[in-house]
């Protein structure tokens, strides 16, 4: 990817330093437009300096300065007419790369009802960003990692990013809320740009940071900069760094914040926080999104639109049955711990670049640096961060990460797939057999995203493979699952997947394998049981423990009865309550774990509350937490780590999970608000 090429090419580029005046800058803008770039830069609108299309140097905010304080932003006149004599405003460059609204999919129902899904038309506009500050270069690098640095590459972001030309501007004056120097992200732009400008007394030094930048500089034909100009760039940015009053100490933040999840400061800040989401909207690295379903009145044509979301909304943590982050305290803590702590294991850097936007644009002026300082000033007594999957040391300046060799493009567009059979399991639960659109293989524990155009998309775990079709066991609880569960053979749905981690079957080789299921939790465990009992030489002792609310809620009854007599399987089913006809065990599923084997490997899936009590019982029996696996559920919109909704502490349930080894989630498992 070109993103990486830029990162490589910049070091040797320092020599190409030119000097231009305002006319030269005008020519530069003209050349960029000539090359087909839309030029976007700072301009004054509605009392602020925003990034918008600029046609000429005249559109730049000459002579304006932004005075900033927590919850306050005012434009004031400068004594000079500097073009870049301001810092950052309410809009960040993400608005042009990870755009606020992006249509993902268009779906239509064709002749005979056949489904058709298309990736929505997408024109990657070539945009030149004029005046990108060092903090924002770092922010772009952070979002590069989020959208292109993991197992999945988001093609829309990647295309816009590849098409962008970046003209950075070095900061010689610090804003009152800037703290890039302490975060190691500025004020000197060192990499990640095509060209970098420094405005000194009405003239600009220009340095190239990429081949594209060098080519443009050649075309510009500007004079070489004098040695003292280059020196003034270093001096000026160094003076700016030294003058920066605000700071945040990034050292040890992951441990500090994740070790103080019960700190009283969270309650104090929650009393002030409006949960209005402004901080996440103005943050140049925040990347959460949600999806809107659209359709015409008949549902014959439909679409899915991605819009900026926020962990401060209730929807972000919502699944059927409730919200994982109901309180403002939960949401603020989620945001801050994600930004400054969880981000490090997720992406190798802090999520904060020190731009100060969240402080200025918080209507009540909550200051992220003060919140951190307050917790640092009185950390809780025993920061217990054992088992945290933290990276050793976060690098101060985020370097764009190369996508993994195995990374694949994930455009989030489903493919039509036909239902071959629909088997009713219980009054509200159906197993759909779905013929996958193309070659399909999965591992037990993974899930698919199933969708109906205009209705919605939901993650559904894979409950088996019947030889020609994937099985999905669906409980009709919401609008999407209700309609999925009503599908009949021959009808189509949208499918993409499989996603996520799987049960590590072979960890149980030669050990007693305990499969512990609660309710619908048996669905993702069924393919595991099938594999375990099909390999008796590897798994001589399999125990299936299943709990349900009532006998009528037990899934896969016929298949379970068919397993009777398997020499390597013992099955124990229990129900919470029963009528007189039920001869089996009555009582909660945890009571069947009293004789949990200390040598066993445990695969647990069910409602979170059931897993909590089941795991506690298993651990009480002396089983080490490394031998226990659980499958988690959170809100999921994309399944590829882009939307941010399924985060569970530093983990993404969609791509790191849903199956986790218990010790990696233990410190959050008995805690609410995550």
């Amino acid at each position, binding site marked *: 990817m070109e993103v990486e090429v830029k990162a490589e090419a910049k070091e040797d580029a320092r020599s190409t330093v030119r000097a231009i005046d305002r006319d030269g800058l005008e020519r530069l803008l003209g050349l960029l437009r000539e090359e087909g770039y839309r030029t976007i830069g700072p301009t004054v609108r509605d009392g602020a300096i925003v990034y918008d299309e600029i046609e000429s140097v005249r559109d730049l905010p000459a002579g304006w300065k932004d005075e900033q304080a927590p919850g306050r932003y005012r434009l004031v006149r400068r004594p000079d007419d500097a073009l870049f004599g301001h810092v950052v405003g309410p809009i960040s460059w993400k608005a042009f790369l990870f755009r606020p609204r992006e249509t993902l999919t268009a779906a239509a129902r064709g002749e005979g009802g056949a489904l058709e899904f298309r990736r929505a038309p997408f024109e990657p506009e070539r945009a030149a960003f004029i005046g990108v500050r060092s903090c924002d270069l770092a922010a772009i690098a952070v979002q590069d990692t989020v959208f292109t640095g993991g197992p999945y590459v988001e093609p829309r972001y990647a295309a816009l990013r590849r098409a962008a030309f970046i003209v950075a501007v070095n900061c010689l004056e610090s804003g009152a809320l800037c703290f890039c120097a302490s975060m190691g992200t500025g004020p000197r732009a060192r990499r990640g740009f095509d060209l970098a400008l420094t405005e000194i007394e009405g003239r600009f030094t220009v340095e190239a940071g990429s081949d594209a930048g060098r080519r443009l500089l050649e075309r510009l034909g500007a004079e070489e900069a004098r040695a003292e100009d280059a020196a003034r760039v270093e001096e000026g940015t160094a003076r700016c760094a030294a003058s920066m009053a605000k700071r945040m100490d990034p050292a040890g933040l992951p441990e500090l914040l994740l070790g103080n999840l019960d700190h009283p400061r969270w309650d104090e800040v929650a009393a002030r926080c409006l949960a209005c989401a402004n901080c996440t909207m103005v943050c140049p690295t925040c990347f959460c999104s949600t999806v809107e379903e659209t359709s015409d009145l008949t549902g014959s044509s439909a679409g899915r639109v991605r819009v900026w979301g926020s962990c401060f909304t209730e929807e972000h943590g919502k*699944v*059927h*049955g*409730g919200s994982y982050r109901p309180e403002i305290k939960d949401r603020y803590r989620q945001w801050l711990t994600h930004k400054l702590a969880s981000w490090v294991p997720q992406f190798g850097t802090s999520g904060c670049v020190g731009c100060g936007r969240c402080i200025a644009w918080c209507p009540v002026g909550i200051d992220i640096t003060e919140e951190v300082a307050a917790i640092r000033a009185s950390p809780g007594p025993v920061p217990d961060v054992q088992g945290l999957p933290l990276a050793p040391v976060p690098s101060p300046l985020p370097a764009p990460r190369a996508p993994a060799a195995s990374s694949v493009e994930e455009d989030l567009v489903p493919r039509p797939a036909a239902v071959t059979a629909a088997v009713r399991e219980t009054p509200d639960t159906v197993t759909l057999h779905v013929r996958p659109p193309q070659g399909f293989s999965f591992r037990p524990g993974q899930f698919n995203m199933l969708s109906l155009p205009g209705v919605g998309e*939901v*993650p*559904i*775990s894979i409950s088996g493979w019947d030889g020609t079709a994937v099985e999905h066991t*669906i*409980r009709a*609880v919401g609008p999407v*699952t209700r309609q999925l569960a009503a599908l009949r053979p021959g009808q189509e749905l949208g499918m993409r997947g499989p996603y996520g981690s799987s049960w590590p079957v072979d960890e149980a080789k030669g050990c007693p394998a305990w499969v512990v299921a*609660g*309710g*619908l*939790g048996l669905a993702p465990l069924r393919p595991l049981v099938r594999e375990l009992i099909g390999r008796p030489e590897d798994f001589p002792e399999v125990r299936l423990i299943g*709990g*349900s*609310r009532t006998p009528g*809620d037990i899934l896969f009854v016929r298949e379970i009865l068919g397993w009777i007599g398997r020499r390597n399987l013992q099955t124990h089913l*229990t129900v*919470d*309550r*029963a*009528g*007189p006809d*039920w*001869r*089996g*065990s*009555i*009582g*909660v599923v*945890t*009571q069947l774990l009293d004789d949990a084997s200390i040598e066993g490997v445990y695969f647990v*899936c*069910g*409602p*979170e*509350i*059931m897993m909590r*009590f089941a795991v506690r019982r298993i651990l009480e029996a002396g089983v080490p937490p490394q031998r226990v696996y659980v*499958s988690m*559920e959170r809100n999921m919109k994309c399944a590829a780590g882009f939307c941010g909704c399924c985060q569970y502490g530093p983990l993404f349930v969609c791509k790191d999970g849903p199956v986790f080894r218990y010790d990696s989630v233990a410190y959050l498992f008995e805690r609410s608000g995550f």
Partner: protein
Amino acid sequence: MNPNGDPDPAAVIRELKVFQSLGGPQVEALAGICREVRYPAGSVIFREGDAGADIYVVLEGRVALGVAIPGGPDMRFLSLGPGDFLGWSAFLPRKPKMSNARATEPARLLSIDGAKLRSLCDQDHDMGYRVVLEILSAVSSRLQATRLQLIDMYRAEPR
């Protein structure tokens, strides 16, 4: 086995995990107030509201506890198997049975006279402490289970 074929109660008691902590003389004393009883499948062992003189330990088979729901069949909420206490409330004075107990499989139970057990424990506090600890452990696990049933953990389920 004694000459007439019935198992020796003391031997039966020694086999039970719940009485493992009792000393020899304590087991002998307990054996003196026990008898073995058998219930065919489907038969009632006790009913809600019964004066409830006896405490049981299940030796074989299964027993279901339930409560009568007016206008419907019993709602059963717990089943017990070998080694489990049954009817522990008889250990408390003047406490009637709180649920219906019915054998769901042919059941063999050790039946202990509650009043006599209490007076044994009164005389021998060491024994009383051990017995109460076992009953407390059973009651605690049932309280925990009842809480989970109260939470109705399958209500909000993962998809």
